[in-house]
């Protein structure tokens, strides 16, 4: 007999509707309805489109997640949901649903910080992953370096001062006509390209843990426009590989700055950008060179999902922390706020 809590996790903070059943840190089921295609024609996430899709997808996904886990709602020990940060209208759909469901079932209700979900995600696949660790969180909506001192004890060491890493990929891919989402598009376009072909700027060298991607964006756009005027546009694979290298360089540098600063023996990652093959390879090289353990979730657990929310709730439920019935979403919530 297990004594691990059985938790339903719901994630609706951005453009993925995710629902999962997790037992402790073990995933019993995890289902997802991605809206990537719905947003692709706009080249980014449209809040109203996202909220509409969550309303349609959520209830069927909850039934599916419970069915796949072979769990009846009466057996659950808690209902967890993303409370923030995220798009207000999107968060509200999951939060209102989860709260009403928990109340009706008479189960504990746990509002979870989306970023904490990402911090916990590697643990769902890898029991060796444990604090203290440095976690690189990078997606279309966020870029942070977090020091996980213990479960529930997080310090944000650095973050982007302008665009998120995924946003930089999206905007540059859009500029180059590569489609959406930009990260995978640039990843694919970089095949066979030379990452050292063009030296784009790496910003904020003087701030060890913070990121900035607007300089890179401007540099790419200006240099390509000039090249086009001169009739000498460099090959796409070289440009894509060089852009990717510039973004990856910054993410990897800052991550290992944080490792050195804290002396943490483990590095992990989360967010859609962590699905990037070049970033994963570079993190792997650097971790190996320094003798640091690396815990990168599979791409499905890097992107937003319900399992990471339920996993984070395991920590809170074990500590006896639940959320009040009158709680509201917190679109601007900060992990250490």
């Amino acid at each position, binding site marked *: 007999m297990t004594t691990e809590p059985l938790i339903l996790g719901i994630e609706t903070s951005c453009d993925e509707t995710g629902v999962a059943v997790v037992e402790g840190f073990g995933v019993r089921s995890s289902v997802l309805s991605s809206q990537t295609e719905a947003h692709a024609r706009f080249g980014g996430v449209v809040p*109203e*489109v996202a909220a509409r899709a969550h309303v349609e997808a959520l209830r069927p996904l909850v039934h599916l997640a419970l069915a796949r886990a072979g769990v009846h709602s009466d057996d659950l020990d808690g209902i967890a949901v993303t409370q923030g940060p995220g798009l207000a*209208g999107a968060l509200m759909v999951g939060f*209102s649903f989860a709260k*009403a469901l928990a109340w009706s079932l008479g189960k504990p209700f746990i509002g979870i910080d989306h970023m904490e979900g990402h911090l916990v995600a590697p643990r769902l696949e890898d029991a060796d992953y444990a604090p203290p660790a440095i976690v690189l969180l990078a997606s279309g909506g966020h870029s942070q370096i977090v020091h996980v001192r213990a479960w529930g004890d997080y310090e944000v060491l650095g973050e982007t001062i302008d665009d998120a890493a995924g946003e930089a990929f999206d905007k540059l891919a859009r500029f180059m*006509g590569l489609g959406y989402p930009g990260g995978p598009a640039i990843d694919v376009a970089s095949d066979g390209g030379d990452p050292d072909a063009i030296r784009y700027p790496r910003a904020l060298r003087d701030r060890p843990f913070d990121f900035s991607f607007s300089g890179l964006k401007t540099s790419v*756009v200006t240099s390509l426009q000039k090249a086009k005027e001169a009739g000498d546009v460099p090959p796409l694979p070289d440009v894509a590989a060089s852009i990717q290298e510039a973004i990856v360089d910054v993410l990897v540098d800052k991550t290992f700055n944080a490792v050195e600063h804290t002396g943490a023996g483990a590095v992990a990652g989360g967010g859609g950008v962590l699905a990037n093959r070049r970033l994963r390879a570079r993190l792997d090289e650097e971790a190996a060179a320094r003798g640091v353990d690396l815990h990168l979730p599979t791409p499905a657990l890097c992107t937003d999902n319900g399992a990471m929310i339920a996993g984070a709730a395991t920590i809170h439920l074990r500590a006896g922390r639940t959320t009040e019935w*009158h*709680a509201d979403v917190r679109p601007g919530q900060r992990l250490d706020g």
Partner: protein
Amino acid sequence: MKALAIETATAASSVALGEDGEVAAMALRVDRRGHVEFLVPAIDFCFTRAGWTPDDLDLVAVDVGPGPFTGIRAGISAAQGIAAAVGVPIVTTSSLTVLALRAATGHRQIWPVVDVRRGEVATAPFRPVPGGVVRDGATEVVTPGGLRALIDSRPTEALVVGDWRALPDSVFSGIHGTKMGRPRYPAADVMLEIAAMRAQQQDFATPEEVRPLYLREPDTAINWSDFREEGMWPGAAS
């Protein structure tokens, strides 16, 4: 037939519990942003007041608008959460019908108005009939000037209900015989009557009907004007 009704289509939020249309408990609050905060504590209050448990429910009724989508989605999501937990059907109502039903007396054409933001209101004409109201024309989203033209286009004297206070006075001045009246906001107790009727006819909502009434296309503006639409390598898009 025990029902829970949830109404969040305007600046007001309300929930009501009732049996066969009779109100057993109700809670209401006016707070444009407070729907999510309000709903579950209000539902909890009503169940305590009525001495019911969620398992007593036969039905959940929810208002799908028109109105601002954010509030409506909070209500729909809560209704779905409860319906999923206790396994009961959902009945949907329109905020305009709920307003008109409460106002229904006499001979006047009833024009409920609901603020849908961006300087526009949703409205539709209703005719009082014994035991209720009948919608007498299309639901439309109009500017204040458009509302005036709609009302003016019909010979029947008008009764305007809903949040007409948010509109300029000039909208109604000089239209023959037009009166302004209550209620200002739709409320969940009226929904119980509609729910009882629908339940009798087994007229439950399909999953596709449990959606906000979207009278507008989504706002798709993304602030990426600093980038050109045209790519560097024509045909590179995947």
